């Protein structure tokens, strides 16, 4: 279980997180929705220790990971996998090297075993025969799949998804939604996704949390989101430019 307690973060004068409180249950997929630039990605990066908060705590199984440094942080990160918005594949490496990097760095497994694991992970995300290709030759959807294979290579307990469907066509986006659900069911992982794709959020989530002006203002199941009277949540999920949330 991950508990985020009163998390604050500013960049210069810009208050991005202004007292975020959120609990993420084990084995569930929790999706954080909100506007672009609303601090969703920053919140995600706090959970894996890429960004340090100004104040507040993030408890993972009761331990405050914002205090972690060096070895402890390395150990913590091995329990996580993260899929980046732009996939963030290493463009100097082949697909096989990208997916196998964590295994080669952190385990002493023999080379043929690593290749076996890499192939298995690539198959799990629906890719075959691209092992020796460089990322530049792949389409956006294939890059996401490779990014996901890399994220699950070390069998993480948690997967973080940063805008998993952004920039993909609706069919490819749904294929990624399906993969996220499949990861949860087959690998039994806890997932946290941030997105502004409300269709995707409804499909993949056990619970949806909405971030607005640096705070979580609503948490509920997809059904609860669909039936809520909260005007801010309604405006966001219906995608209206007029209302409490200002478009500009």
């Amino acid at each position, binding site marked *: 279980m991950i508990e985020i307690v009163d998390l604050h973060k500013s960049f210069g004068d810009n208050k991005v997180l202004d007292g975020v409180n959120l609990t993420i249950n084990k084995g569930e997929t929790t999706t954080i929705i909100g506007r672009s630039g609303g601090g969703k990605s920053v919140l995600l*990066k706090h959970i*894996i220790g*890429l960004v340090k908060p100004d104040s507040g705590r993030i408890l993972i199984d009761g331990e405050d990971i914002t205090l972690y440094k060096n070895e402890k*942080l*390395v*150990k913590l*990160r*091995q329990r*996580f*996998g*993260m899929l*980046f*918005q*732009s996939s*963030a*594949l*290493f*463009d100097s490496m082949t697909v096989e090297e990208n997916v196998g*990097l*964590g295994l080669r*760095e*952190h385990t002493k497994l023999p080379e043929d075993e690593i290749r076996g694991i890499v192939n298995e992970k690539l198959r799990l995300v629906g890719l075959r025969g691209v092992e020796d290709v460089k990322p530049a030759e792949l389409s956006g959807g294939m890059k996401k799949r490779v990014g996901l294979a*890399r994220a699950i290579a070390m069998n993480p307990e948690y997967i*973080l998804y940063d805008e998993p469907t952004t920039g993909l066509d609706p069919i490819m986006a749904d294929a990624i939604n399906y993969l996220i659900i499949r990861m949860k069911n087959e690998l039994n992982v806890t997932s946290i996704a941030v997105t502004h794709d409300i269709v995707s959020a409804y499909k993949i989530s056990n619970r949806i949390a909405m971030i607005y002006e640096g705070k979580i203002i609503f948490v509920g199941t997809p059904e609860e989101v669909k039936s809520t009277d909260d005007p801010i949540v309604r405006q966001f999920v219906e995608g209206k430019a007029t209302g409490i949330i200002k478009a500009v």
Partner: protein
Amino acid sequence: MGMGLVSYIGSKALGFFTDVGGVAILLKAIVFNLPRLFKNFHLTVEQMVFIGVNSLPLIIFVSIFTGAVSSVQAAYQFHNYVPMRYLGTAVGKAVVIELGPVLTALVVAGRVGAAIAAELGTMKVTEQIDALETLAIDPIHYLVVPRFISGITMLPILVLFSDLVAILGALVVAVVFVDVSAHTFLSGLKMFFHLSDLFAGLFKAFIFGGIIATIGCYQGFKTTGGAEGVGTSTTKAVVISSVLILVADYVIASFLFG
């Protein structure tokens, strides 16, 4: 307007000290990561090839002309005042102490410093550095240390080549155009040759290599804002390391020869 100027100077000064502090923190991180150098040593070998071997043709080309022009210029200055048997002495000293290390470093700063900043800067803005960290791989260990070690080892080796080629270039020009015999030139070269001069030049190269790699990595890591940001970092890496090379050259010279 007065306040505008004050706040402009203030923000520039703040930026300067932030950078000095940032580079110091980076250097400390490099030192703390040195014990793990031989894990992933293939990355260091790759960088040594890129920084050292691949720079060699350019360095040789530049050095031939450096030697040639110093021979021509020295002969012109000596004309009617200093005997030409000192031509080899003057050219040898100038090349080994000053021209070899500084010109090699400036050329490498342009070629390698820019490439380091552009590569790491692109990795930064495309979240590849973040991705390394989420895989629990320290970017200092994985990206910076290999470049730093290659910089401080390859620069002295490049300078050795540069010294040799420049003196050969000077010799050829002396024989063909200045009418000084090879024997005269070489005996002049040997007359006041001190091994300590050569080591001073190589020590400079070692420091310059460290400057190029560190500034390149630092500028790469602090890149923000897409393609434009990468361009800015690349320019800054070349300009700042070139200036620092000249400043360091003076400081080292005043300690060793002052």
